[in-house]
């Protein structure tokens, strides 16, 4: 139904979307998740042509919507959008908000639009509020009116741009339950959301966006339970990271310790875990000094709030041997310490770099 190829969007020198290719089938409910500022909303706005893409193509049912002679207004009727900030007309009643566009743009009679509008208000649970002004409604009610208004245009595709971000926590569920109901009705929907449980429940597919690309996609279970790629994992597991570049074997251990302690302190990592982490860092670096060509070395401390897990990622140039496989008396003491404070470790070699991931035992 929607075919997007090599979509890009720049704002000046800033590449917000780099190279997005994805197909959305009819009736699919696709959630778009990812950190703030990674282009999720811009992606939706480009599909709806609220932002003009800088490159690539978007085809809706085979029609190239970026072609010069495309009727943008007609495209938007088929593909309506629900915004974070509702965008209701505050000087019109709830029902008038729903009937204005169908009368003006779809050529419906006022009576027909009114009947349909009342039906839709009933669908979103606000039938009795039809004569109210938007300002008399709560945030959740306003968003439900906005969804009903969107449906009044009988769209084939609905784009939701963080529909619950502007709402109080108590109002989020009423809006999500309306969207869930629409999903069950088979509408094609793209939803940018930070509500992970909702995305897991409602979606047929989840796109994880990062760095202006679709970094990983899959069924909700794949993305939420066993994400394959590092950044997806970090996002899903609410992982916080602290990155340290160590250019040579002569490094400032105390400055590094201070940075790691600061990171642990900010995240309220327990004292014992912190001590073991600092010990691990020193031991791994000492072992790396014993392994030729280990530098420059990139050290990343990852802390998973959800599971209270600390891990240390040590990336070295290709060809470096695993420091945990060093032999000899010099390495032996360090290895014994490391082995005892680790839960497990993984070593991966590739043509680009070697990765040693060390998981500290929980304290």
């Amino acid at each position, binding site marked *: 139904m929607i075919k997007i190829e090599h979509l890009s969007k720049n704002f000046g020198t800033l590449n917000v979307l780099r190279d997005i290719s994805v197909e959305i089938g009819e009736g699919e409910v696709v959630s778009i998740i990812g950190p703030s500022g990674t282009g999720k909303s811009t992606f939706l706005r480009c599909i709806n042509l609220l932002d003009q893409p800088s490159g690539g193509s978007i085809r809706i049912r085979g029609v190239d919507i970026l072609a010069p002679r495309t009727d943008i207004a007609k495209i938007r009727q088929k593909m309506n959008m629900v915004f974070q900030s509702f965008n209701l007309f505050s000087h019109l009643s709830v029902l008038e908000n729903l009937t204005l566009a169908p009368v003006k743009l779809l050529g419906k009679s006022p009576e027909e639009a009114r009947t349909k509008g009342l039906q839709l208000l009933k669908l979103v649970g606000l039938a009795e509020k039809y004569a109210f002004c938007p300002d008399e409604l709560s945030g959740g009610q306003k968003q439900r009116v906005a969804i009903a208004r969107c449906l009044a245009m009988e769209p084939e595709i609905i784009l939701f741009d963080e529909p619950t971000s502007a709402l109080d926590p108590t109002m989020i569920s009423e809006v999500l339950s309306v969207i869930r109901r629409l999903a069950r009705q088979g509408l094609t929907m793209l939803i940018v959301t930070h509500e992970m449980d909702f995305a897991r429940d409602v979606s047929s597919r989840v796109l994880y966006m990062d760095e202006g690309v679709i970094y990983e996609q899959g069924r909700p279970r794949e993305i939420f339970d066993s994400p394959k790629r590092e950044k997806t994992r970090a996002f899903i597991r609410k992982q916080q990271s602290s990155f340290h570049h160590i250019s040579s074997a002569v490094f400032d*251990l*105390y400055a590094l310790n201070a940075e790691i302690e600061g990171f642990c302190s900010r995240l309220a990592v327990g004292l014992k875990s912190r*001590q073991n982490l*600092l*010990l691990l860092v*020193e*031991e791994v*670096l*000492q072992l790396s000094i014993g392994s030729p060509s280990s530098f420059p070395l990139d050290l990343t401390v990852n802390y998973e709030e959800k599971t209270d897990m600390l891990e240390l990622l040590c990336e070295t140039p290709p060809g470096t041997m695993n420091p945990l496989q060093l032999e000899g008396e*010099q390495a032996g*003491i*360090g290895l*014994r*310490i490391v082995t*005892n*404070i680790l839960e497990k470790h993984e070593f991966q070699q590739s043509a680009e770099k070697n990765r040693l991931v060390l998981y500290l035992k929980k304290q």
Partner: protein
Amino acid sequence: MIIQTMKEGAGLVVTVSGRMDAVTAPEYEQKFEEMLSNGETDFVIDFEKLEYISSAGLRALLSTSKKIRNKNGKIHLANVCGNVREVFDISGFTGIFQVHGSVAEALAVIAG
């Protein structure tokens, strides 16, 4: 790391405070070199104020103890506790050294 020494009867009590790590371990070794060249042979090392030890610290400890023993000297440890004790235990060092609960206890053993 701060190293303080005090002559107590038969031995020299060496109090080590702070950290024994890759940065400070050479300093520790150097200090013992000096003490050995000054004719000291019997040591009680008090770790009560030692906050952190890594394998670099343990290696320095091992290397100095070999030098002491080569001179027919004695080395006893006292007050190995907390995190330092844990590192001793997991690295097997508790079994290598004679570890005592207090400096007085260690001195008594040296005095024989």
